[in-house]
């Protein structure tokens, strides 16, 4: 293979990938499939007019199978080659997000996060998430020197600002670079928000900031940013009704999150029934398959709110198990990143794992009414083609990083196996 085509062989890596990470991921996938079957069959039966209880289950199996092959393909790719696509990927994702908005406006629909490809609907915001990770990983790796530079910036506006303030406010090169990437992250978030995907925007902001942090931006800006975020949060919580950027439904959700009315069967229906499901599960759960709340009480029980059904059937123990598995996956993923052969790989792995981790944390926060109800899916568990494919694709890149990382041999598939043959 190596000799057949030099160009192609340059794209691929043949080292072993990280087995512990792979196994944890497979465990989560298997767990996810079982819970998806349990949480979706009632809804499936209803949606298909009694034809099939397995409609969503089979589709997800298909997505996972397809995703796994994508993952394997990506894992064999040399991730460093992704650098070439980093900037263009972000632009494409913006284009797709904006296209969705435009189509949505034309069709006059309220919320449109989906782009129909005829046979398959994609969610551009999912692609945007990965594009941000890729863009930041590439840029922050390439411009590391600028990021850590303490020299005054020579960018025209920074120079002008220094002149006007008589040198009192001087932005360093690092700060300007940080701002540059922050603006890109922010813009992406705004586009996604315009596409009516508040949770996606928040997610992008959060792991974007995490990546900038990893890119060694100056700590003080993160402290300032954190304080600003808290102020914004306080304002939003108190004046959500009067903020023009927030659409009516967003304000509604914040309002119903704040009132905590357990008897509300309208705006808090989903959240309340999610909490009822968790309570019904108790410590040990009602047993796999025994959820009653999945019978049309918890809406979206097979997608964004699948965790509440896990909570009902497997109890607190099961919830902790799921969160524990995710924690293991994240720790292993980040460990791989820290042992990657280059900064790009490290940033890529960190970004991907941060994205997954934040998504899990926010999903459970929504299910437990800790945060307002927004549509965040639970990776490996929630039903959905886009999210499954993007997640598994990202896993592929992470495994690709692992192939070239400095990891103990014991844990990697290696050619030594092949040698035995």
């Amino acid at each position: 293979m190596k000799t057949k085509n030099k160009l192609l062989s340059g794209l691929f890596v043949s080292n072993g990938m990280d087995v512990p990470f792979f196994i944890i991921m497979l465990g989560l996938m298997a767990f996810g499939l079982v819970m998806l079957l349990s949480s979706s069959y009632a809804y499936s039966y209803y949606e298909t007019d009694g034809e099939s209880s397995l409609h969503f289950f089979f589709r997800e199996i298909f997505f996972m199978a397809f995703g796994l092959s994508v993952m394997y393909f990506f894992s064999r790719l040399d991730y460093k080659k992704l650098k070439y696509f980093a900037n263009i990927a972000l632009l494409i994702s913006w284009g797709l997000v904006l296209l969705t908005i435009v189509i949505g406006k034309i069709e006059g629909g309220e919320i449109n996060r989906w782009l129909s490809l005829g046979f398959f609907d994609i969610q551009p915001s999912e692609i945007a998430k990965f594009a941000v990770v890729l863009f930041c990983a590439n840029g922050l790796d390439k411009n590391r020197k600028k990021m850590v530079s303490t020299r005054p910036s020579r960018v025209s506006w920074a120079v002008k600002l220094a002149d006007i303030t008589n040198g009192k406010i001087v932005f360093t090169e690092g700060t300007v670079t940080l701002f540059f990437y922050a603006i890109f992250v922010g813009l992406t978030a705004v586009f996604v928000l315009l596409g009516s995907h508040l949770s996606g925007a928040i997610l992008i902001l959060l792991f974007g900031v995490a990546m900038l942090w990893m890119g060694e931006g100056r700590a003080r800006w993160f402290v300032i940013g954190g304080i600003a975020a808290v102020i914004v949060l306080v304002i939003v919580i108190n004046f959500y009704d009067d903020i023009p950027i927030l659409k009516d439904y967003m304000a509604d959700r914040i309002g119903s999150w704040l009132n905590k009315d357990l008897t509300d069967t309208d705006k808090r229906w989903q959240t309340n029934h999610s909490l009822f499901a968790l309570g019904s599960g108790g410590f040990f759960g009602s047993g796999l398959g025994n959820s009653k709340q999945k019978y049309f009480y918890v809406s979206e029980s097979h997608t964004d709110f699948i965790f509440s059904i896990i909570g009902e059937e497997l109890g607190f123990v099961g919830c902790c198990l799921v969160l524990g598995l995710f924690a293991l996956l994240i720790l292993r993923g980040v460990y791989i990143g820290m042992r990657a052969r280059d900064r790009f790989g490290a940033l890529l792995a960190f970004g991907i794992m941060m994205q997954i981790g934040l998504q899990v944390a926010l999903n459970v926060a929504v299910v437990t009414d800790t945060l307002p109800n927004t549509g965040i899916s639970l990776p490996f568990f929630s039903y959905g083609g886009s999210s499954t494919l993007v997640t598994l694709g990202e896993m592929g890149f992470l495994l690709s990083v692992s192939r070239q990382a400095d990891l103990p041999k014991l844990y990697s598939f290696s050619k030594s196996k092949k040698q035995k043959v």
Partner: protein
Amino acid sequence: MGVEYLDSHFVLFLVGFIMTRVNKKMKNRCMIAIAILLVLGFGVDILRLAYFQVFNADEYRVLAESGQLSDTEIPADRGVIYDSNMEVLAESASAWLVYVNPSKIKDKEQRILISKGLAKILDDEDLKWKDIYNKIGNKDYGYVKIKGKIEYEPKTKIQEFINENDLYAIVCIDPDTKRYYPYGNFASTVIGMTNVDSDGRVGIELKYNDVLTGVPGRIITARDGHSDLMSTNYETKFDAEQGTSLVLSLDKTIQHYLEKGLSQAVKDNDATSAYGIVMDVNTGAILAMATMPDYDLNNPSVITDKAVLKKLKKIKDEEEYAQAYNEQVYMMWRNKVVSDTYEPGSVFKIFTAAAGLEEGVVDINSTHNCVGAIQVADNRIHCHKREGHGVQTLTEGLVNSCNPFFITIGQKLGTEKFYKYFEAFGFTDTTKVDLPAEANPVGGVTYHKKEDMGISQLSSSAFGQTFQVSAIQMITAVSAIANGGKLMEPYVVAKQIDQEGNTVYEKTPTVKRQVVSESTANTVLQMMEQVVDGGTGRNAYIPGYRVAGKTGTSEKLTVDGEYIASFVGCAPADDPQIAVLIIIDEPQVANHGGGAIAAPVAGVVIEQTLKYMNVEPVYSDEELAKLNATAPDVNGMSVAAAKDTLSKHNFNARVVGNGDKVISQYPSKDQNIPLDGVVILYTETGNVSTTSTVPDLTGLSISEANKRAVNSGYNIKVSGASLGSEVVSYRQSVEKGTKAELGSTITVYFKTTSGVQDD
């Protein structure tokens, strides 16, 4: 291959060191970021999960179950209400209720289909299809009741409607119960009825609601978020338990007599109402109780009284009309026997007499000279007979209903003793009868308090004026006179029986107290018998039965110029079984006295009741002479011989046809026929039954009525007061102008108009 592998790894290893790898700062920052994620993200999540799943799980589980579990009530049948002979007066039967699950309605078209379909089947004024359409609009609801208490026929129609239009789980039918009153108006103010929720609203249904109400059964099922049954086999069923049944002391037959008498009294006297009660004097059991006009228990909100409807019609304003209508409905439901108070008037004199005899301030031979008036403090109180009754004994005083006589008795007793008996006869307290809304006597309002009872109040009270009592108080007190002085606790419910027919409660007659001695009571009773035999109560006289009674007439305290006429009677006087009280409210006839209008009603009720109770009549000679005889057999005789035979027996003959021989007679042999009656002799075949027009037989004396009847070819049966010459017929059983077979018997009711005035 092995070398190649090693090579590549070695190269990688080197390259790793050459290229910018992860530095210390990045590693630190990575650890901080992950720590924040795990602590703030995952940690908070786990705390929240613990909050809901460990520490407050029960609260949320209950909330979940309250949504999932659907508790369907199986209505329990109410207990049956029987009369004393186990005739069903009220019972619950299976019915159904229909509801709609709006969340399952597919589209507007289906919504219209359901609305129109149900409206057509239910055929309810208040449930037009638009009403149903609006009811079932909210898709968030899984259960909207359309109508309950649906009977079998519409229920099957709805079932067909569901089948035809494939509306399963959209239109549904649940069990329900419905209360039926087989006799409609019968005893309506006593029995009462239930509301939409099957709770007693008035009457016994209200008073015994808890007893009659059964324990509803339940079906607990799990339902999903769309209100459909969950696929899990999760259903628990508890059967419904029927409520306890009641056996009343009320007797359907006696009740019927009373109701008939009262409704006739309302009609005859153009009265606003008439009410009455028949009581077993020895037990306090109420044998009959009625208020007229009454209402149909199966349609309790429909006013049928024409006078009331006429009054209502004048109200033009819709809202005002509705309010007035409602008020009238409530008025119609009122059991006046228990809830209303009235001025007893002269009837009360029997208690003054009893108190006087018991205390020894008078005896049976005491006399009083009535000069037509008596001075009490600053007032001169007149006797109803302005010229005075002259010297009379106590009995004569009662017979004449002489006011001054009883004023003197009251004054002789004094406030202390008079009040003692007033209280002892139960006029200051409720009777505790087991019926709702009993009028509560209030000292200073409905009667004079002891401390307020001066000579004027004492004097007026002594002959039954200036205070009010309820009919149930009055009949209970009269019963005490009739039963030898025992004040009984009146009751309507004699027995309670469970679903299997076991008696779970039986009322034992309760003696509240001995009010007067047996001899005093008997003396008063004898005096009362004189009232009926020759006094103001003679219209209650019944041949063959000894009746004791007292009349009363009083001007209403509350309404100017209106009167209330009453009569209370006990029979048989030598061994009283029953007491009857008849009250006629606001009669619009000139002669509005109790003796003139209430006593005849009581007489008929007492006669019918005693006969029904198989009390053997004992006739005096005078009565016997007027008794009916039987027709001799003249069939086959020649017309002349037949006429001869009949006249020998003091009968008249009327020949129909031109034949020589009697081929048929009516009344036929051994049939009852009054003396001086007529026998129709048919002499031609094919003409053996002829009808004629009934003449007007009212306003006549007995002999006049008989003569007129016989001349028209009819016989009469004398009913009511028949002693003395001044009796006048006031009603006939077959209306004048109607057709009736020649020779048939028409009952003619007589009463006397003179000597019955008592106020």
